[in-house]
């Protein structure tokens, strides 16, 4: 049973797992591409629906989790050997291992290695030498980042929910259970940041359900009731009064107009009649902000009244105003700001953000260390007539190998007839 468990652990933590799984999904992607242009979306949908595909994708974070554990165990073993706390030598911990049938004095060798810039630790039977800084922290960060990335993708694909809602100034924040507080203000303002040109703030009053006062911005989006509040587009909520010669009683309707940027048309049908009104925001004067009308309090709506396919007339009226012609009358008593908002239930986003941070930290640590101070280590252990020498390098391997070989020559020269013994290579 233990053997089976060990074999399973070895397979799951193998470096081949991730390329194989990615390769499989890549082939699946190519296969799907033969049948549809929406290849990526189809692949995501398949993965969401299929337990087998989801399990296969889950192998990647599992693989990285195992590799984190395995890497930590290996690092601890090497650290203990070099600290003289363990003699649990294993060839797979090193790049190169040689056994010589000699019993050298390590003192000369130590001097030699110090002159080469190595730090040393010597005891009666061992000599450890090293220089540079290990990339172990960067490697752990990289593994953790990749774990988070694929765990995030997995969680996101399999559990993500999205509900589009209209957040309207002056009305309660739309929540499934009606627990949202009242949206007090929606503020669009120009920003001076490097990335964002505008900021959007939605101020929500405390709700009866116990939510305190909240202010929602653009990025990072805030969590509210277990979902991210993700503002998408701007629009207007219009209270429309419409009168026509053949509709003297008139008609009142609350319209949601997805009419930004200016020029974009939003159409409203008057139910039970041949009338249709197409609204748009007039293009602002050249040089002024396209979203000025959204930021300002006085908004003007342009409209086109159609009866069937015939345009009866076009016109415009401000919020609170009205327009009358040929017995028709359109009044806009109330125009409020609106934000088309997605409620995203997806904790995978948190993993992906964490992955981005870990990747950045890993590169920040790895790059200077790998370029200027790569870790190089060698270890000499004497037991009886045999001296075992081990070496590993995380960079500058050729130069380090040269020093190691010279050190071995020095060890061998300390004896009358150095005899080559066993040679093993760690792969």
């Amino acid at each position, binding site marked *: 049973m233990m053997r089976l468990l060990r074999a399973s652990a070895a397979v799951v933590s193998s*470096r*081949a797992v991730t*390329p194989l799984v990615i*390769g499989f999904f890549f*082939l699946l*992607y*190519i296969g799907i*591409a033969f049948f549809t*242009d*929406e*290849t*990526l*979306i189809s692949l*995501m949908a398949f993965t969401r629906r299929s337990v087998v595909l989801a399990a296969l994708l889950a192998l990647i974070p599992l693989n990285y989790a195992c590799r984190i554990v395995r890497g930590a165990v290996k690092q601890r073993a090497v650290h203990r050997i070099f600290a003289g706390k363990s003699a649990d030598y294993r060839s797979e911990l090193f790049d*190169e291992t*040689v056994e010589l049938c000699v019993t050298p004095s390590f003192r000369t060798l130590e001097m030699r290695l110090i002159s080469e810039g190595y730090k040393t630790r010597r005891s009666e039977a061992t000599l450890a030498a090293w220089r540079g800084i290990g990339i172990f922290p960067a490697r752990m960060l990289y593994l953790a980042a990749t774990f988070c990335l694929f765990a995030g*993708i997995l969680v*996101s694909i399999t559990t993500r929910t999205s509900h589009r809602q209209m957040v309207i100034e002056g009305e309660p924040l739309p929540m499934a259970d009606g627990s949202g507080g009242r949206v007090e203000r929606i503020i669009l303002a120009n920003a001076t*940041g*490097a*990335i*964002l*040109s*505008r*900021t*959007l703030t939605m101020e929500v009053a405390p709700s009866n359900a116990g939510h305190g006062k909240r202010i929602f911005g*653009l*990025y*990072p*989006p805030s969590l509210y009731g277990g979902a*991210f509040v*993700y*503002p*998408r*587009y*701007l629009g207007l909520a219009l209270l429309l009064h419409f009168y026509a010669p053949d509709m003297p009683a008139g008609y009142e309707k609350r319209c949601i107009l997805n009419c*930004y*940027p200016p020029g974009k048309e939003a159409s409203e049908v008057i139910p039970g009649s041949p009338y249709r009104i197409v609204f748009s925001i007039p293009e602002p004067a050249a040089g002024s902000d396209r*979203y000025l009308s959204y930021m300002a309090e006085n908004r003007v709506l342009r409209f086109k009244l159609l009866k069937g396919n015939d345009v009866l007339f076009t016109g415009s009226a401000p919020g609170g105003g009205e327009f009358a012609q040929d017995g028709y009358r359109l009044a806009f008593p109330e125009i409020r700001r609106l934000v088309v908002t997605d409620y*995203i239930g*997806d904790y*995978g*986003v948190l993993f*992906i*953000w964490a992955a981005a941070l870990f990747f950045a930290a890993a590169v920040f640590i790895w790059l200077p260390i790998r370029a200027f101070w790569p870790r190089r280590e060698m270890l000499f252990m004497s037991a009886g007539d045999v001296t075992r*020498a081990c*070496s590993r390098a995380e960079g500058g391997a050729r130069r380090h*190998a040269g020093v*190691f*070989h*010279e050190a*071995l*020559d020095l060890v*061998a020269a300390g004896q009358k007839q*150095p005899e*080559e013994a066993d*040679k093993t*290579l760690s*792969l």
Partner: protein
Amino acid sequence: MVAVKFIPQILAWIGIVLVLLRGFPGRRSLVTAASIAGFTLGVAGTVILFRSFSGTTPFGVIKSALGVNFLVLWGFAVTVLYRSSGQGMTNWWEKFFGSSLCAGGGALLAGVMAGAVSACRFPGADATAVALLLLVLVAGVLALEALAVENMLPASLTVTPAGLLSIVVSLLLLSASSLLRLDLFSPLSMKVMKGIHDFVHQFMESILVPDHLFVRSVVWKYIGFLFGKEVGFWGGIIIWFTPALLITLAVGSQRLPSVAHIRQGAQRRKLLSDALRSRRLQMVMPLCSLAVFAAAAYQSSFPSVEYWDPKPVAVTANQSGEIFIPKQGEIDLLDGKLHKYLFKQGGREVRFFVLQNPAGQLTVDLDACAICKPDGYGQAEGSVICYYCKTLIPLETVGKPGGCNPVPVHFTEKADGVAIDSVTLINSWDTTVKVTARGKEGGK
């Protein structure tokens, strides 16, 4: 003249045989015989395919086989890189590569592919039995010539199995890139562009990045760059060259032999020097394959084919918004050629064309599809080509919606011409083409 058209196929064939002979040095006769037999089989199989299926199916089969070859190369490249990093794996495949089965089978398969691609060079009626026989004969003679030439190559120039596969596949793709219907690079670029577009879009949605109205235009331009044709091209280039690069990298990062057990410095240095020299020579073939891949990509990007692409004629709509194009006049709509028109209204511009298909029906289509940037179409023999993604669309299917086909426009055929509603035309352009042009280069 026909022989000139075969130059890419002939060069590729000589190269393939030469590399196979060098890759399997102990089995020269077997490799020569198997490759010639494979070539013959490939030619015969292609003829059978063309006689069994009509339309583009035979090309599709051979193109798919080439795609599988490229995918196999990718898998192989990743595997050798993995092995070069010192991961323990069994050596069963090294034994397999040294076997007669591998030498014979590999040469046969390479021959089949080379023969199939070469046979596709004969356009329709030119594929007479005599011509095909002559093709096989020439291939046989060239293979025997290659056998003699291979003897003259320096013995130190060795080929690893990965290097062998890399150069053979690159030569096959070079051979295929001179035939528009077999070319893989342009469709690959197109798919990459779509893939990157979808990926970036999904990624931004995933991490809840605000929409472009909130983001600085300069930042959005950088993001928009990821949706452009150049990204498709460069992404395609990366995928195209990566297998050969990975193989080169794998050879270059092969571990040097351990010399720690040798106590003479000179001997150590000699051993390492020999190993380094051998490693450099093994990199020659993968590096050569990079050059061949580059030639194939160039051939694909700048095909030596001229298209019928008339300058669009400006048209206007009458007061009721109808655009009328007469069948006869300065332009004959019934001549089977593509005729382009330009309609402008209120700062908007729509390019469209009228074409009589081989079935004798007129069709009106936008000079753009619903997927690509609207670079337009040109007409070649039996097909129109999308200039953006180089997809060939058979004339029979022009007028049908979907994929990279030109977007069909509703029209009324009258006795003396065709009538198109200008509003329908503009709406059609706005709803389909403008979307694809957004964030790209604004069209032609």
